[in-house]
Structures are given as C-alpha cells and as structure tokens.
C-alpha cells in the first residue's frame, strides 16, 4: 500500500471515528462526569458535585449489594450451563447428525431469534403456578408443583432457565463453527493411529475449539450482565429482592426516580465489572491463539 493510499484510507476512516466519538466516547465520559454529581433530570434543584458520594451510597444500599450478588450468580450459573449444554449439543450435532442438518439447525436457533419480551411473556405463562404447563407436567409425574415466579427460592432459577433456553443455541452455533473448522481427515487419522474418543477430545478437538468457546463465553458474560427485558417482564426484581439485577436497579434509578448521578455511578460500576471479565478473557484468548 502506497503512502497516498494510506492517506486516502485514513480519510475514509475518519467519519466512523467521529461517529464513535459522538455516540460512544462522549456519552461515556459524560456518564463518568455525571456520576460525581447529584443531578436529577426532573428536579428543578441545582445540580451539585458530590465527589464519590454516589459510589459510597450505592455500596451502602442493601438492595444494590443484593442486585450485585444476584447478577454475579445469574452470570455464573447461566453462562456455565449454556456452555456445558451448548458444547454437548454441538458435539452430538457434529458427530451424529447427518440428515436434515440445516432444518434442525434452523429449529435450534429459533429461541435466540425471538424478541426477549416475547420470550418472557411466553415463559410467564409456562411458569404460571396454576395454569402453567411446567407445573402440569410436574403434577402428571406426581411431583409437587412449584411456585416458580412467586417464591424467592425459585424466582432467580426461573430467570436462569429462560436465559439458558434462549441463549444456549447461540453457544451451540459458535462451538459448532469451531467443530466445522476441524478437518474430518484429521480426526480419521487420529482414530487410525489408535486414539480413543477421550484422547481425540483432549488432543485435537478441545485445542481447536477453545478459542470459539472463549468467544462464546465472552459474549454471553457481557450480555448476561446486562440482562434486563426478561427480568423486567417476568418479575420486575421481585418477589422481595430475589431477582433484582444491576441493570434493573440502574433502570429504576434513572428512568423512574430520574436520579441521573446515581444511575450513572451504577452504570460505571457495571461497565467496570464487565470490563474486568472482558480483559481477562481476551488475554486468555490471546494466549491460546
């Protein structure tokens, strides 16, 4: 590439950079600045700079700490289950499914193509304690029906079930792409050399698909940390504080109470949490690749 071409290239890239600055960098810096103020969007009171008071207030709020705990729990369990189930399904799919591959693939990815609100409404009926199909199945199997969304013991589990149902296909697709990148004859060669299935998995498959798994993990962690729609429709954080999550807590601060300073501080904490995980996983990914 000549220096003239590089110059042209830079000119073409500038509009994108300007857009990113306007749409991402500026709002982010603005949110950081706002997080040190007591700005209320509706109140006619003068906005004051309050230093780190908003951050202190958040960590003193028992509902915030509960939402933090719930979010970490939700991310850990959902992501782990999605990876485990997605990996297993992808392995079964790669190994055994030969016919109707495209058709089955289309059916499998349907949940993730659905709007989260539609998914939540559908599950609201499924979870209904009196009329829901889930309790109907439980009762048919002589099991005790469960108060899925109404008890603090099961409400978070219900949210996790919905998230797993919707996003496992996403993990499956990514891991399957990893499987597809392995040449079939490489597998055949290892089998001819006398490797058993466990060795095949340990020495050929896992090293090849690990970058794909990490990408899926990264995207699912970021997404689950921000989970909002499903919780909002199903439980709105309740019963009690059983399903209170960081994004719901922030929504309430910002769009119900209009406490923009506090809401910004909460968002910065969420961004920091996501960033720590992202940096760690990207480093791991780089090491593997």
């Amino acid at each position, binding site marked *: 590439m000549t220096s003239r071409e590089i110059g042209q290239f830079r000119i073409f890239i500038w509009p994108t950079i300007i857009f990113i600055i306007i749409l991402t960098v500026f709002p982010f810096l603005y949110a950081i600045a706002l997080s040190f103020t007591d700005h209320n*969007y*509706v*109140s*006619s009171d003068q906005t004051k700079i309050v230093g780190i008071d908003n951050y202190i207030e958040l960590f003193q709020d*028992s*509902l915030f700490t509960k939402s933090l705990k719930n979010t970490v729990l939700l991310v850990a369990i959902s992501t782990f289950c999605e990876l485990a189930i997605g990996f297993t399904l992808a392995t079964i799919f790669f190994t055994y499914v030969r016919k109707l591959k495209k058709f089955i693939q289309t059916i499998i990815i349907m949940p993730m193509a659905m709007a989260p609100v539609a998914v939540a409404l559908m599950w609201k009926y499924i979870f*209904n*304690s*009196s009329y829901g199909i889930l309790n109907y199945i439980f009762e048919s199997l002589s099991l005790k*029906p469960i*108060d*899925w*969304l*109404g*008890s*603090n013991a099961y*409400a978070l589990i219900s949210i996790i079930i919905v998230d797993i149902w919707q996003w496992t296909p996403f993990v499956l697709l990514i891991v399957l792409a990893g499987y597809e990148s392995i040449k079939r004859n490489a597998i055949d060669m290892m089998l001819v050399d006398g490797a058993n299935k466990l060795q095949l998995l340990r020495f050929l498959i896992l090293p090849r698909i690990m970058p794909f798994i990490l990408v899926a993990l990264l995207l699912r962690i970021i997404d689950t940390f921000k989970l909002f729609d499903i919780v909002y429709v*199903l*439980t*709105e*954080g*309740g*019963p*009690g*504080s*059983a399903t209170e999550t960081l994004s719901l807590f922030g929504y*309430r601060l910002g*769009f*119900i*109470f*209009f406490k923009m300073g506090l809401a910004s501080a909460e968002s910065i904490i969420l961004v920091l949490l996501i960033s720590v995980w992202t940096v760690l996983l990207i480093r791991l990914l780089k090491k593997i690749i």
Partner: protein
Amino acid sequence: MFRLLLSLLLIVLIIVGCSNNDRAQINVIYFAGLPMGQVMKEMMPEFTKETGITVNFLEIPYDNVRSKELTSVRQDQGAYDVMYVDDIWMYEYAKEGIVIPLTDYVSRDSLEVDFDDFVDKVVVAESILNDTIWLMPQRADAQCLFYRTDLFENPKNISDFRNKYGYDLNPPETWDQFKDIAEFFTRDTTGDGKIDLYGTTLTLKRPHFAFEFFAMRYWSFTNSQFLDGNSKPIFNTPGGVEALNYLVSLKEYAPPGVSNWQHDESITAFAAGMTAMCPQWFAFYPTFNDPNTSTIVDKFSVALVPGMYHEDQLVRAPSIGGGSFGVPVDSKNMEAAWEFIKFMTGKRFMKNAAMRGAIVTRKSIYTDPEVLEKHPIYDLHLKSLEISWYRPRLVRYAELQETIGLAVSRAFVGEMSSQEALKIAEESALEITK
C-alpha cells in the same frame, strides 16, 4: 406571469395550510387499555366537528407514561399538548412545574366547566394543590371488594360458616372477618386432593401493586397515614407491623404465585372463578361483567373494602386512584388543549363514558337516573370514593412507593420479618422525605 401567479398561489396555500394545522392539531398522551380511552376515541370525531381541532391520540402502557411526559417537558420538546396525569403524580407535576395552572381557564369558562360538580374527594386527590387547579379530573377510582354471590348465598355455605365461626356469612365488615371467610372458602371442591377454590386474590407484585394493596390494610389497622404532617415517615409502628403480618397471614388462602401478581393475574383468577373474593379497583367491574372475559357474570357483586374498629368506629380505607388531564408547560397549543380537556371532562362525555361502564368524576353522573338504572352498583362506588384515603403526597412519591412496596414483598415471601422490612423501609423513607 402565469408562473408567477401560480407560485404565489402555492405559497399562500402552503402558509394557510400550515397555519391551520398548527392551530388545530394537538397531541394527547393517554394510558393505554382503559375503557375510558375507547370512549374518547369514539367521541373524538364529535370533538373535531365541534371545535375544528384534530387530535393525535397516543395511547401508551401505564409504566411508560410518566417517564415520557417528564422527559418530553424537561427537553422542552413540546411533544404533547395534553397529558394524562395519575393522581399519585399530581404533587410532582405541580411542584416541579411540569404542568401549567388551570385556575384561570376554569374561572373563565366556569359555567361550561361547572367545577363544583366534581366529587369533592376526587378534586383534592387529582386536581387542586395549594388552592390552585393544576389538573382536570377525568377518572376516579377507589378500591372495593368483589365477591362471589353464588358462594355467599349458598345455603350449605351459610349454615357451615355459621356453625364454624359463630356469625352469619356476609360480605366482610372487618379484616378479621375477611380472613375467616378467606379461610372458609379455601378448599378442594372436586375431591382430587388439590385445592381449587381459594379465599381471595392478592395483588402483590412490587413495587406499586404491593404498596397499594398493603396501604388499604395499613390505613385501617393504624387509622393513620404513612407520613405525618411534616412528611416524616411514621409507618414503622406496632400497628404497621400488625397490618403487614396480617397481609402475610393471608398467603395460605390465596392462589400460589400472588407475590408476583399484578392486576391482570388477579382479575383473570377471579373472573375464572378461582377465588371467592377479590379486593380490587372498581374500574375492573366491566371486565367481571363481560361474558367474553368472565365466567362469573351474574355471580358476583361489590362491597366496600373491610375495615378495623377504632374506638367503636369502623375505619374502612380504600385507596383513591384515577387520573386527570394537564397542559404541559411546553405545549404550543394551550388554548386547543384546554378545549379538549373541557370536552373530555364535560358532563356529556362523562355520561356517555359512565353508560359504557367507565369510572367518572362528576357527582351529577353518579346521581343520574339513567346511569343508575344501567349500573346500580355506581352508588357503591361513589360511597367508596367518599370514604377513600389518599396515598402519600410528595415529589419523590415513586421512591417512597418502591421502598414500602419492597418491604411488603420482602415480608410476604419471608425474605425478612415484617418488623425488619418496615425498619429498613423507614430508614430509606427518612432519606427520601428529608
């Protein structure tokens, strides 16, 4: 020359067209899904014919109305000319200068408006603050008790109840009787070992459902408000704890899952014949009375909510609710907005709405023989309105509601004791009201 004339004609037409549209079109934001909204849509052509004002009617879900209205005004967008304002938002809208005072408009058109015709309690709840009229009341609701007449009038139930509790089976006067009746009707009617009839519905999804259905019990148990005259929280008292403990004790007589129920679930359960009683807002009366949405048409009636005795006086405390119309400070069509408000809160409109089962705000409609003949139950609704209680009035109402609603929900599902939940809530409330 011809081209010049044609151009001039076009310019004149455009200017005339634009100016006409500017003057004659208003944007109205309203709470979706109300019978009143349906009546408004049907009467809109009549309004346009009479006034020449066209209306862009935006119906959006309740949860989004307040945030849309407040952000629109704070951004000075002038997006709306008429706003729906829930009674619990009035204080915030007036104090924060979201809506303009309407006192001068009302005085100017006093004959047409007949402001004294509005139910007194409703005016205080949804219209006047510090002697200024901020909003014009359109919907007036109050909590009441729906109950199944087929169950209450069944001779076997009457004698069984009398034998078990020692008094007659009637719509409950007190919350203690309510609990007895709820217990009595919670049963397995088919003999398959599963409970299929429950005593009562409970509507306790946090925050505002939990708060409003706790409030009616709290008020009657304590005979006092949540805040004192100086807006200091006073709800963490033995009476408050007793009221919350009472609510928690009803859990075993309600269908499973009620801690996550909002109006929809509650109404569906009662309309499906799943419960014997249903404390709810009167506004849902048409839903229970409609064969398309209810299996209990002609099998239910309405009573005042139960209360508690305080020095021989029975304190029933239904909450008042409803909504009004206000003109936002950034409206570009205030005069047209006022015309719309006058029409949609006027006697002609109100009568039409009442005949269709909507809840209205004018005394004359509640005493109108034609309306009472069609809906004799409106008499009880008026009584309920007259004894109703106001929810706390403060700018940060949403935060207080969230705080108390969370406490109710926490105690109900056993996350903590009623005492502990109310103690935490009062600490937060002190911060909110300071």
